[in-house]
Structure formats: structure tokens, C-alpha cells
């Protein structure tokens, strides 16, 4: 276990950003922009994913969540550089993850500065390339934009999964489940009755977190609140069914706690994209992250709350969560025993 942790933390989970997907809008298409774009391509930090043709496309690409950064060259970039000794380049970063945005703009600036120095070397008068930066979605680079969705995912998971699993298993330990089984009451009703209060509690939790983030952290809710609530309830249901599944499978509170923590909490923290960018993980971890429900919820919350997107942009993630809900619930009901063994 400690070996696995060291390997995962040391190599796989890193805050360093590599191979970030970027898009380029080259309105100038001259010698200078071509070499600069080549510099970007050659850098191990960036993958030039797309060459765009219009400014509108830039917006769309960000909405799709495909790119982290866009580099935009104005018309006559080379000419301005040659004649005026200075030129402009615009960097637009997806700042819904402010850490990544900061890192990427810093890398980009470094590449541009390098290029500027390399061409200046042969001349007396220095060239200056000014970069104009725009932080999309989160102009102030507030950390809250990142951690609020993460905290929401964690709180819901903690309350729903762990608490449901523990309270049901507690009944098993106390022996009251035994008495309940030997009664005309259908066992499924017992279990559902255990889950409902946590669903209600979770809704209160979601509202509290949202109120706090809007009024205390001054975070905007750019998308539809109804959609956000519905998606949150969907995630809550996924967590609850996971809790039920755990409670059906284990016999002691300790085991329930352990499984909730190790099998759910840690992956949520590490693999949901909230602490460590998923793009930088090695393939096996990236694959595993797909089965972490929180990853999908995290994407949804960021999209709706911060990017202000609607259901048509997040239907895929919603579908994944719905699939998970059906799977876990079926498993939990199947696993639930009408007898003790």
C-alpha cells in the first residue's frame, strides 16, 4: 500500500502540466507566426490541437472543454515586428482551473520571450512582443472556482456514501437488522428509509455550499441553478446507491468506513481532476479516473456553474452518471440479502 501510494503520488499525480492541448488562431500566417507556432508545437508542455480560423471558434473550443489555452496572433504580426519593432499576441486561458491557467500562461510567455531573444540576437534594436492575457471564466484567478466544485463532490460523497453505509451496517452490528428481517417489513423498505434522510440532508448541503460560495466567496453561478441542482441530486443518488452497495457487502462499521475511505474518498480526491489535472496522468490512471463518479460530477459543476453551459454541453457526463446510478442500484438490490448469510 505505501509503495503504491509513493508511486502514484510521485510520478502519476503531478501538478506539472504537460502536453496541454492548445489552439492557435493565426490571422497573420507569416514567417514569424509560423516559427512561433513551431516553437509551441515543439515544447513538451503543449500540443497544438487545432488551427482555428475565426475568433468565434475560440469560444466554442473552450466551451467544449477541449483546449486549455488559445494563442491568437493579430494580422500583420511579422510586419509590425519588422517595422515597429514590436508586436502583439493574445493568450486566452481556461481559468476555471486557475492553477493550470497560471502555469500554462507562464510557459507560453517563456516560449514567446525565448523567441523574442533569439531574433533580437542579430540586431541592435530589440524586438518586443507584447502578450495580452485573458483569463476566461475566472478573470481574478480565484482558487474558489476550483475548489468549490471539488468540495461539493467530496461533501456529497462523504455524507451519502459513508453515512448510509455506516448507519445500515450499524443496524447489522446491533442486531436490530436481524429483528427487522424477521418481520413482515420488506428489507428494501428499511434500506430506502435509511437513504432518504441523507438525500434530504445532501440537498440542504448543496444549497448551503452554493449560498456560501455566492455570498461569501463571491463566486458567480453562470449557468442554470435548476440544472445544477438536478445534476447534484443525480450525483447524490449515485453516492447513495454506492453506500447501499457497500452496506450490503460488509458486516462491520469499521469495514464500511475503511472501504468508503480507501475505495471512494481517496480516488475522489486524487482522480477527479480536482487536485491533480487528469490530462497529465499516465494512461492507466486516466482510464481508472473514468469510473470515479466524482470526476464526471466535477466536470458538470464546473461547466454549469463557472462556464455557464447548458445541458447540451454536458449530456455526455450526465449520461455517464445516470448509467452509474442504474448499475450501482441494481447491484445493491441484487446484493441485499433477505437472510443473514
Amino acid at each position, binding site marked *: 500500500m505505501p509503495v503504491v501510494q509513493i508511486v502514484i503520488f510521485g510520478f502519476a499525480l503531478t501538478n506539472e502540466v504537460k502536453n496541454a492541448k492548445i489552439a492557435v488562431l493565426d490571422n497573420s500566417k507569416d514567417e514569424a507566426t509560423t516559427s512561433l507556432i513551431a516553437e509551441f508545437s515543439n515544447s513538451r508542455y503543449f500540443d497544438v490541437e487545432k488551427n482555428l480560423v475565426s475568433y468565434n471558434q475560440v469560444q466554442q473550443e473552450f466551451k467544449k472543454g477541449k483546449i486549455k489555452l488559445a494563442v491568437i496572433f493579430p494580422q500583420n504580426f511579422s510586419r509590425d515586428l519588422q517595422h515597429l519593432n514590436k508586436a502583439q499576441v493574445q493568450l486566452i486561458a481556461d481559468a476555471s482551473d486557475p492553477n493550470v491557467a497560471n502555469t500554462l500562461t507562464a510557459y507560453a510567455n517563456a516560449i514567446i520571450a525565448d523567441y523574442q531573444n533569439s531574433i533580437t540576437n542579430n540586431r541592435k534594436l530589440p524586438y518586443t512582443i507584447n502578450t495580452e492575457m485573458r483569463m476566461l471564466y475566472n478573470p481574478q484567478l480565484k482558487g474558489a472556482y476550483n475548489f468549490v466544485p471539488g468540495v461539493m463532490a467530496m461533501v456529497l460523497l462523504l455524507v451519502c456514501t459513508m453515512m448510509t453505509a455506516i448507519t445500515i451496517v450499524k443496524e447489522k452490528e*446491533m*442486531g*436490530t437488522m*436481524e*429483528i*427487522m*428481517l*424477521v*418481520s*413482515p*417489513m420488506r428489507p428494501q423498505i428499511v434500506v430506502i428509509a435509511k437513504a432518504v434522510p441523507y438525500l434530504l440532508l445532501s440537498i440542504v448541503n448543496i444549497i448551503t455550499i452554493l449560498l456560501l460560495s455566492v455570498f461569501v466567496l463571491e463566486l458567480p453561478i453562470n449557468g442554470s441553478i435548476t440544472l445544477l441542482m438536478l445534476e447534484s441530486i443525480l450525483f447524490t443518488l449515485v453516492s447513495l446507491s454506492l453506500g447501499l452497495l457497500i452496506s450490503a457487502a460488509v458486516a462491520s462499521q469499521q469495514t464500511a468506513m475503511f472501504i468508503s475511505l480507501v475505495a471512494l474518498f481517496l480516488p475522489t480526491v486524487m482522480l477527479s481532476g480536482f487536485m491533480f489535472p487528469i490530462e497529465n496522468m499516465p494512461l492507466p490512471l486516466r482510464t481508472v479516473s473514468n469510473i470515479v463518479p466524482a470526476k464526471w460530477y466535477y466536470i458538470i459543476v464546473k461547466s454549469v456553474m463557472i462556464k455557464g453551459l447548458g445541458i447540451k454541453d454536458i449530456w455526455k457526463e450526465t449520461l455517464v452518471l445516470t448509467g452509474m446510478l442504474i448499475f450501482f442500484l441494481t447491484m445493491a438490490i441484487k446484493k441485499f440479502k*433477505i*437472510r*443473514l*448469510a
Partner: protein
Amino acid sequence: MQAIIIENIIKTYGKSKDVMALNNISFNVQKGELFGIIGPDGAGKTSLFRILTTLLLADSGKATVDGFDVVKAYKQIRKIVGYMSGRFSLYPDLSVEENLNFFATIFNTSIKENYDLIKDIYVQIEPFKNRKAGQLSGGMKQKLALSCALIHRPSVLFLDEPTTGVDAVSRKEFWEMLKGLKQQGITILVSTPYMDEADLCDKVALMQNGKILSIDTPGGIINNFSNPLWAVKSSQMFHLLNDITKQDFVKDVYPFGEFHHVVMKDKSGETLLKNFVQMHQEDKMQIKELKPNIEDCFIALMKN
């Protein structure tokens, strides 16, 4: 009418099914009977109770409760039986009254509806109805658990070790309550590790290591004990035990309260024992003939 029919029940545990909890058990319980299953821990009492209350599946064999099959008709059985497990299975954070109300609700009934049945038991704890169940003494918890098991007027009552770890006074009170319930026509199957409780049952099964040693009325079991049984006492109890063990006429001897119980091989032993006492007058030896009790029978059956 048979309330419970058990035929060739086998139950094993473990991956290789090597732990034999119940080894081919068969017996019947008549309607309205107070039937005791007497045996130490590990005899298989709890496994048997769980099979009959539909909580466990037997490896093989058949059982019915009130005519319902424990496997196929488990839903019907759950409607008609009352079950009290040896563990304290009440909600400690709920009050006495809340617990009772809760169990009444899950059985689709109310305290009022069946109050007459639990009245004699419940009045004893009613003064504390607002106290949390977790704060009751052992005897009180037991009474509450019994009230909860009875609240839906079950036709068969399963009590798995209700008196284990409970002091002698509370045990006596508990058996008084069972007598009262029996008069109401409820069939009661009760298990206990205390041998002296056997006398209070209509019929008992003595169990050890998953097998039934004997099954009969307490009187019947005692009548089957054919060897003469004497009690011996002296001022040197420990030496007396060693001395008597060596005698040829003795089949078995063991301490029993303030006496040693001597089981003789046959009638002729009685004179020999009297001679033995004559020879050891300095130890103030006392002897008397005894009617065996269930514990004597259990020991004899175990050693057979």
C-alpha cells in the same frame, strides 16, 4: 397439531464446510408447548433458531413453522413469528415507548391493539417508558425486548438465549413471564445454556456440538438416568474427589455445589459406598441418595 417440524437439518460453516453447526437435527414442537433447547455455547442453538426464523438457509433438510416452509414461505413466517435474539437488539437511542411503538409499526399493528398480551410484562417497565433503552438494566432490557417480540401477537415465539448473562433474580422473573405467555396459547421455543432452566419447560432437547443428546419431557429425561446417584460431602472435598474416583463401583464423580455427585455402575455400589464412608469417618463424611437433575443427565449423556 405441530407448530414446528424439523427434519434432518444440516448446517455447516467455513469454506470447506468443515464446521458442523447442526448435524442432522430432527424434532417436532407441539402447538402451545414451551420447548427448551438446552446446551452450552457452540451447541448449534443459534444456527437452529436462525434457520427456523428464516434468517439462514440450511445445507439440507426441511423445516416448517406453523405449516409454512422456512425457505419457500419465508414471508408468511415473518408475519407470524416473534423473535428475540440473545444480543440486545433494541434501539439504544430510542425511549422504551418509542422502541415498542417502532416495532408495533413495522408489524402493522399498534400498542393498543395487543396491549392485553404484553400488559403483564410491560407494566413492569412502564414507569420508565421515557428512559432511553440503552440506559436500562439487563433485566429491564430483556423485558422490553420480549414486549417488542410480542407486540404483533405472534403464534410462535423464538427466544434465543434470553437469559444469558442475566442474574438469577431476573432469570426467575423471566421464566414466570414465559409461563404466563404459554397460557395465552403461544408456542414458545427457547434456548439456554443454564441447565436448571430445563425443569421449567414442557419438553426439552439437550444439545451438544450440533447434535441432540436427548429429547423428552424434563421428567422423562430424568427417568432415563438409570444409574444410582448419590451425593457425598466431607471436610476434605478435594481429596474426597480423588479418593472416590479410584473406587471400582464408581462410574463417574464430579463436584456439584456443596456435594460431589457419585454415579454408580449399578445398585451394588450403594453398599460399597456406605462401606467407604465407614472407613473414612474422620472426615465427617455425609452421604445421601439423590434424584438426578438435568445437569446430571447432561453430563452422563456427554460422556457416553
